[in-house]
């Protein structure tokens, strides 16, 4: 048994594969946060005055806000003055052909090739490296279909009317502490616009990479789907292995007009910290979709395996009549990771539907919390919600917590909530092993089965990726 324990220890300490650092000349803003820093940031990006003013307004509001403490997370104090709010590779290429080979190599290593020869078939990628987008693939092909897919910086320059119309219209400037901070200092992100009646011809994807030390990443994503359009979008995230915590505070806004459909998938693999809880990304994210139009549909799917701390609640505001929202989530916490995640489904329109499938997996000393709100407002006649919330525990030192909030103000609403907590049982493990499967394989198979309902919502190639990621993240969880 002693040797087995050692094997497990070894597997447990396996390196986080995305933990490398790219050695590239980087331009920084000095650490610290003030109105001056925000003006400098805005000037660096040649932003119009309205954008600078918007940031300053957010900043002034942020100063008045307390740090939220309601989540079931233990977080040390964050020193916002010690963070650099802008870090970017010095060379700024005009097109993908001129991108520094070191950057291309970085994305190759992460399995997201950007250059012409090796581009992922059928997936357009926007690559965000620290504070800036370094390139977007398939732009011409998308433009031919009328789809705009570019970095947020470019969108502010080239499509100011669209940005002004929609930015902050789903997540207002003063929505919450981390969203306000993001409004003040966001540096880049992706912008997607799908015009009326267009079905986006390929998957869109943004790959976020934190590389620089002592910086935070504050990205902003905005997706607008006009009447009758469809888009499927995926984001991935990784960061180097470091002993310091790094801050990531993003805001994602989705707008779906009449009959539009947005499918948003996330595979989050930020550096989780080591087995003692040293280092790792603090991931504070505000994601919200507005089903503004009738019969619109927004679907969130997330696989959260990384980050030391995850604080995110991708939500849907079901404003349009007959609109629907979905949330499919797998959140895994191992070692000392903590996650407080879930969703909010706000039913405003008539006959609105929402569905929540949440799968939490806790291993090691990981703490995993599901926090969800289902709210049916006065006018939401015929609203319908189904929530299924399952927790799986591996080992004896981890925890799973569930906080479902339900507020119903219309008598016709039907709200269902089902929750289960289970352990990978010795019986299940023995059964698998007695058929010839090794212990680790048995665990990943049982976990994979547990997550099946969520994985099947992911685009095919990412479902495979997510499964692999879960296996790696769970290595050494049994013992």
């Amino acid at each position, binding site marked *: 048994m002693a040797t087995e324990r050692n094997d497990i220890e070894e597997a447990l300490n396996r390196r986080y594969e995305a933990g490398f650092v790219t050695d590239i000349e980087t331009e920084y803003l000095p650490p610290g946060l003030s109105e001056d820093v925000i003006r400098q940031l805005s000037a660096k990006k040649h932003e119009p005055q309205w954008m600078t003013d918007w940031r300053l307004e957010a900043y002034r509001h942020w100063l008045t806000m307390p740090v939220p403490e309601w989540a079931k997370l233990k977080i040390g104090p964050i020193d916002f003055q010690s963070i650099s709010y802008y870090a970017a590779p010095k060379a700024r290429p005009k097109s993908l052909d001129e991108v520094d080979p070191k950057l291309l190599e970085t994305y190759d290593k992460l399995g997201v090739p950007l250059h012409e020869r090796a581009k992922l078939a059928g997936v357009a990628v926007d690559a965000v490296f620290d504070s800036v987008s370094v390139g977007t693939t398939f732009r011409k092909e998308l433009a031919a279909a009328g789809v705009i897919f570019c970095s947020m910086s470019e969108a502010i320059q080239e499509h100011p009317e669209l940005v002004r119309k929609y930015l902050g219209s789903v997540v207002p400037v003063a929505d919450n502490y981390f969203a306000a901070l993001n409004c003040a200092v966001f540096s880049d992100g992706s912008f997607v616009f799908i015009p009326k009646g267009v079905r986006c011809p390929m998957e869109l994807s943004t790959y976020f990479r934190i590389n620089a030390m002592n910086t935070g990443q504050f990205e902003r994503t905005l997706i607008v789907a006009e009447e009758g359009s469809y888009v499927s979008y995926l984001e991935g995230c990784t960061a180097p292995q470091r002993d310091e915590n790094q801050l990531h505070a993003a805001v994602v806004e989705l707008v779906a007009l009449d009959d539009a459909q947005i499918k948003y998938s996330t595979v989050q693999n930020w550096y989780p910290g080591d087995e003692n809880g040293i280092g790792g990304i603090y991931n504070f994210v505000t994601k919200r979709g507005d089903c503004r139009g009738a019969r619109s549909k927004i679907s969130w799917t997330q696989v959260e395996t990384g980050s030391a701390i995850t604080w995110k609640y991708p939500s849907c505001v079901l404003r349009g009549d007959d609109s629907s929202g979905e949330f499919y989530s797998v959140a895994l916490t191992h070692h000392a990771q903590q996650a407080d995640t879930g969703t909010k489904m706000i039913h405003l329109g008539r006959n609105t539907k929402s569905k929540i499938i949440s799968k939490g997996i806790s291993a090691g000393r990981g703490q995993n919390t599901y926090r969800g709100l289902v709210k049916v407002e006065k006018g939401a006649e015929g609203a319908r919600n189904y929530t299924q919330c399952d927790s799986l525990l591996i080992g004896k030192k981890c925890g799973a917590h569930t906080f479902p909030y339900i507020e119903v103000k219309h008598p016709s609403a039907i709200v269902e909530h089902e929750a289960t907590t289970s352990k990978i049982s010795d019986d*299940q493990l023995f059964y698998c*092993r*007695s*058929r010839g499967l090794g212990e680790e394989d048995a665990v990943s198979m049982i976990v994979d*089965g547990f997550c099946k309902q969520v994985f099947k919502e992911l685009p095919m190639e990412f479902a495979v990726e997510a499964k692999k990621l879960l296996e790696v993240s769970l290595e050494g969880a049994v013992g």
Partner: protein
Amino acid sequence: MLKIENLHVRVAGKEILKGLSLDVKPGEVHAIMGPNGAGKSTLGNVLAGREGYEITAGTVDFGDKDLLQLEPEERAAEGLFLAFQYPVEIPGVNNTYFLKAALNAQRKYRGQAELDSMQFLKLVREKLRVLHISDELLHRAVNSGFSGGEKKRNEIFQMALLEPRLAILDETDSGLDIDALKMVAEGVNHMRSPDRAFIVITHYQRLLDYIVPDFVHVLAEGRIVESGDKSLAHKLEEHGYAWLDERRVPERSAV
């Protein structure tokens, strides 16, 4: 093939097997009968390598291997199969996928090439045909929501697919109606061969009408107290296990 000598096993501090010995040769079918609590299931579990059993004395050789030194998955790959009394449900894991992973893990251990999906499916179809099982079970999650009979049928199907050298059936007949019982027996009989052995653990004689054993052993109070041919099973059926106690009284007082 399997040689158990003087096996003593404790569970939670209590001695359950108290010096059990058994010798199984290739091609033989051994039935192990005995009253509840005699240690029948303990024997199956210990042989398959389940945790929680403390082996305090004795040896078990399987082929040229010391069985007790092997992990459960190694025992499986060496050709030992346990059909569970209570097959375990694994929600969300497709039955076919599970079996393919298990078979390939065993093949890998034995240094054989892994089967690709086409080869595997061919094998599956072949086994389904001889066992007269519908392929409907294959598309469902492992044992999830299966009826008692379906679970046992699935165990036999797994056994057929994994082609073990030694199969242990732990009360596979319990809770089965006569049709399901026949199906299980047919599966076993079909697999009987000169180089494969079976240990059939059962409480009732009924199963042995369909799977005719070469040897019948009676397990009581942690050791084999009586061995014989299939007629022993009939005697037990006739007289009940109490008959054994009567026969064992002198022996007991001698201890």
